[in-house]
């Protein structure tokens, strides 16, 4: 099996949604395309292949998509024991695969699954691991990761050692996704899975979907977020309307979550999610450092706040000082008007 | 000589600061605007035993020292001054005299509830004709055999509306200034005790200040605190601790003024730069910070001497005098830094000014503090 060149290969753990247990076809998550994009770039520098690995059941449909987005090789590990993610099963399958393949690097997405899995996998295999990466590059023959630290008040560069496996857990919405080339295909390999089900010590009983139709915050390109200035839970309806016009997701800073106006999964910031949208509209958010830590990577920030001294205006690309209860509906209306206008 | 705070003092400081900034500070403007007394916050402070900081653990108190107390009061005052006033009255003016002069039975009966904030206390000394001249008080307490009968009017009673444990000073003996005064514990519900006029104040509006009217108020014999006719001693000993508490409150207000003004000066831009870059602003901030630091050293040292069990009347007065005048001065400076915005109630600094003023007056005016300090100086000549 070994051609001697594997240590230049870049592996990507493919993440997907749907699949047999949820009663539908599996399809790749956005982060997977981003990891493939980064892997292509790195493999170009190492001279190796991009290898995508997927674990689960009924995954053959993913191979074409993985190939089209840049995988040279797709490794599928399919078994009922892998039907839902468990750390025990995934580590049991991936550790020997990595030990045998000895790639230059394994890229994992910083999702709930990735953050649960990667550190355990690193401990099992003695790998170097860096999480929350905003970039991974080859520098002077070493793999170097970049990540924000200290509530985003500093940027750290970390080099992987020359020894042993390397795992980089990459933040979503930061690296550009690979483009699709339908003519591109990958070599598909199925590996046998021999995990003893009795050795799996966790079991997913059920998955309770949260009633949110919009795209997850960490993947959203447009986010409309509300803060203390919203004053009450029902006013988030204003942000829902604006987000709907913009095709975006709704989030919040910490005070609305603490006050119980919105659930915790809305929270953006040090004690919530880190997001990287193209457009972030902050309504009634003062912009404390803990909040900025979660959204300062946004490409364009619009701030609406009636306090001209609010720190959010220091990071906003565009700021409107005024009453959000007037401005937000006007903005929603103006965007709706733009969309329906001829040539709009 | 050790100037750093010890481990447990730092933990008290960080705990109270964390509590005050997340639970109290967001409500400060609303509490001042509406004058609402927040019983839910008192309950939380009680759960942490901050309503009985130096009450021994045997009576459900915090079992800590005076330094812990002043640290706690300063942190609460930094967030909101009225609640600090409530805390200071509860700790210094009600828990302390019962602890220092009460019978074991009185301690068992009152301290646990007071220390845990389940009951609120207040201090009834001042009268319409007896302010600085407290010894001239006219409320009487007549021995009726199996009870005391009290008659008189007390004014400017902090916590008077919500309190149900009242420390009341009344004349039991010769009408000759300090002598012949006794201290009593009255409870809401005692016959003949009523809340009179409720005052509308310039500042510390979330704490109530009112008149307490005693009309043939009947107290059981076991309600006297300490010896008969020796109550003035109770009042004076109580004031030593009370003054240290007020000094801490003043420091908290001053610090709020400094921190708010500093944050504002860094954001506010005029002539193309933050006003924090102008020397005039920098000098104000530097002077504020230095005086607050000096006030804190005076206050902590007075607390330390008290914890050593040594006399500290003069040090308590110096701390209270300096800290309160610093608070008033710092709040004025801070308002000036805010400029026009400082005059507007949307911004917190005018509240700091209104809250600071009372610290120069109650628990002994600045004039009285100066007399106390001078008396100590001249006596030792």
């Amino acid at each position: 099996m070994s051609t001697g060149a594997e240590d230049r290969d870049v592996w990507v753990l493919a993440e997907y949604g749907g699949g047999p247990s949820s009663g539908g076809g599996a399809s790749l998550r956005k982060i997977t395309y981003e990891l493939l994009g980064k892997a292509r770039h790195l493999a170009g520098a190492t001279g190796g292949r991009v290898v995508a690995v997927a674990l689960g059941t009924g995954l053959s449909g993913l191979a074409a998509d993985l190939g089209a987005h840049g995988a040279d090789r797709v490794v599928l590990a399919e078994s009922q024991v892998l039907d839902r993610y468990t750390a025990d099963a995934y580590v049991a399958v991936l550790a020997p695969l990595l030990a045998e393949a000895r790639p230059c690097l394994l890229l994992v997405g910083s999702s709930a699954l990735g953050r649960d899995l990667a550190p355990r996998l690193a401990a099992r295999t003695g790998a170097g691991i860096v999480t929350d990466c905003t970039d991974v590059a080859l520098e002077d023959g070493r793999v170097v990761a970049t990540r924000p630290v200290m509530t985003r008040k500093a940027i750290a560069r970390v080099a992987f050692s020359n020894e042993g496996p390397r795992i980089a857990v990459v933040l979503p919405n930061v690296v550009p996704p690979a483009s699709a080339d339908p003519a591109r295909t990958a070599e598909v390999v199925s590996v046998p899975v021999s995990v003893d089900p009795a050795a799996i010590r966790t079991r997913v009983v059920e998955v309770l979907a949260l009633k949110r139709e919009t795209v997850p915050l960490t993947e959203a390109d447009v986010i409309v977020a509300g803060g203390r200035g919203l004053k009450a839970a029902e006013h988030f309806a204003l942000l829902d309307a604006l987000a709907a016009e913009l095709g975006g997701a709704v989030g919040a800073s910490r005070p609305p979550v603490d006050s119980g106006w919105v659930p915790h999964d809305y929270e953006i910031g040090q004690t919530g999610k880190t997001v990287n949208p193209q457009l972030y509209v902050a309504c009634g958010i003062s912009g404390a450092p803990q909040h900025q830590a979660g959204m300062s990577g946004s490409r364009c920030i619009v701030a609406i706040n009636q306090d001209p001294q609010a720190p959010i205006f220091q990071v906003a690309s565009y700021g409107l000082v005024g009453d959000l209860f007037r401005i937000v509906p006007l903005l929603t209306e103006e965007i709706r008007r733009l969309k329906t206008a001829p040539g709009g | 000589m050790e100037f750093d705070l010890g481990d447990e003092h730092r933990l008290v400081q960080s705990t109270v600061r964390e509590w005050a900034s997340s639970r109290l500070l967001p409500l400060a403007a609303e509490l001042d605007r509406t004058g609402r007394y927040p019983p839910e916050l008192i309950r939380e402070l009680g759960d942490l035993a901050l309503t009985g900081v130096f009450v021994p653990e045997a009576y459900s108190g915090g079992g800590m020292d005076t330094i812990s107390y002043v640290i706690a009061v300063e942190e609460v005052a930094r967030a909101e001054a009225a609640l600090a006033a409530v805390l200071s009255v509860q700790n210094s003016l009600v828990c302390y005299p019962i602890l220092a002069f009460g019978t074991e039975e009185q301690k068992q009966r009152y301290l646990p509830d007071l220390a845990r904030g389940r009951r609120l206390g207040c201090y009834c000394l001042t009268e319409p004709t007896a302010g600085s001249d407290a010894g001239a008080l006219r409320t009487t307490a007549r021995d009726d055999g199996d009870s005391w009968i009290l008659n008189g009017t007390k004014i400017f009673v902090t916590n008077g509306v919500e309190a149900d444990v009242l420390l009341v000073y009344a004349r039991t003996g010769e009408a000759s200034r300090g002598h012949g005064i006794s201290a009593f514990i009255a409870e809401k519900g005692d016959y003949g005790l009523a809340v009179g006029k409720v005052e509308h104040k310039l500042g510390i509006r979330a704490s109530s200040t009112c008149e307490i009217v005693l009309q043939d108020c009947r107290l059981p014999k076991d309600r006297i605190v300490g010896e008969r006719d020796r109550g003035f001693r109770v009042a004076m000993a109580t004031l030593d601790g009370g003054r240290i508490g007020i000094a801490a409150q003043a420091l908290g207000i001053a610090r709020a003024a400094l921190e708010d003004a500093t944050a504002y000066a860094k954001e506010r831009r005029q002539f193309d730069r933050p006003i924090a870059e102008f020397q005039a602003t920098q000098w104000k901030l530097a002077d504020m910070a230095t005086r607050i630091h000096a006030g804190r050293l005076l206050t902590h040292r007075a607390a330390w001497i008290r914890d050593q069990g040594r006399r500290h009347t003069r040090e308590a007065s110096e701390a209270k005098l300096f800290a309160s005048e610093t608070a008033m001065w710092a709040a004025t400076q801070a308002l000036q830094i805010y400029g026009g915005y400082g005059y507007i109630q949307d911004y917190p600094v005018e509240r700091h000014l209104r809250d600071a003023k009372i610290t120069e007056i109650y628990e002994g005016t600045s004039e009285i503090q100066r007399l106390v300090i001078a008396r100590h100086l001249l006596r030792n000549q």
Partner: protein
Amino acid sequence: MHVVVCVKHVPDTEAQVRIRGDGRGIEESGLNFVMNYYDEHAVEEALRIKERTAGTVTVITAGPARAVEALRAALAMGADQAIHIQDAALETLDDLGVARVLAAAIAPLPHDLVLCGKLATDYNASIVGPALAEYLGLPQATAVSRLELREGSATAHREIEGAVEVLEIALPAVVTVERSINEPRYPSLPGIMKAKRTPITVRTLADLGLAPGTAGVDRRVEPLGLTPPPKRQAGRIIEGEPDVAVRELVRLLRQEAKLL
């Protein structure tokens, strides 16, 4: 039930962070350190379990001398015992190394459950939790917002993308907690006094039977240095009445930012 909680002493997230001149770390002097925010939730959860099941709560930290304050804060909240792993070699370890050290300290203790915060707010690595589970040979559940314990197993609600995953996990286990799991209590004054009197067990790597210097774990990542974050371009305030300003904003978003 015996619960062990791992806590970390980290800079206050409010703190102004200054990068050292040599770029190799942050200036610690003048910085305010506190117990990691997520660990407070872990300690609180442990205390609630103790109150329900009559067990013990042991807190443990691997860190420099100042880290004892995180232990005292946990004791003041109500934890029973505290262990401080203090060793100059800690500074040379990477996160897996730290997890290895914690595992060595926890393994000999009675532990039905090991709790940590899901991440520490200084480096946000969230590596120690699952790595600790691996080194202890225990199952894991991360980012848990609700935990129900039974004899021999537990049900954990995990926050995942757009959903809550309900997981059954065998005990003993390592669980990392989300902030939505509970509201931590403040240390009371009697708690602070009790914490002051509670002796703290101090351990070096050698005490734990680990090779001094490396703990038997080779460093696999090497920090190269810190730089300040990129400064955002100064933006602008759009003036005018709301309807005018809004139209101008939309125009700019379209034409300048090329977003709509």
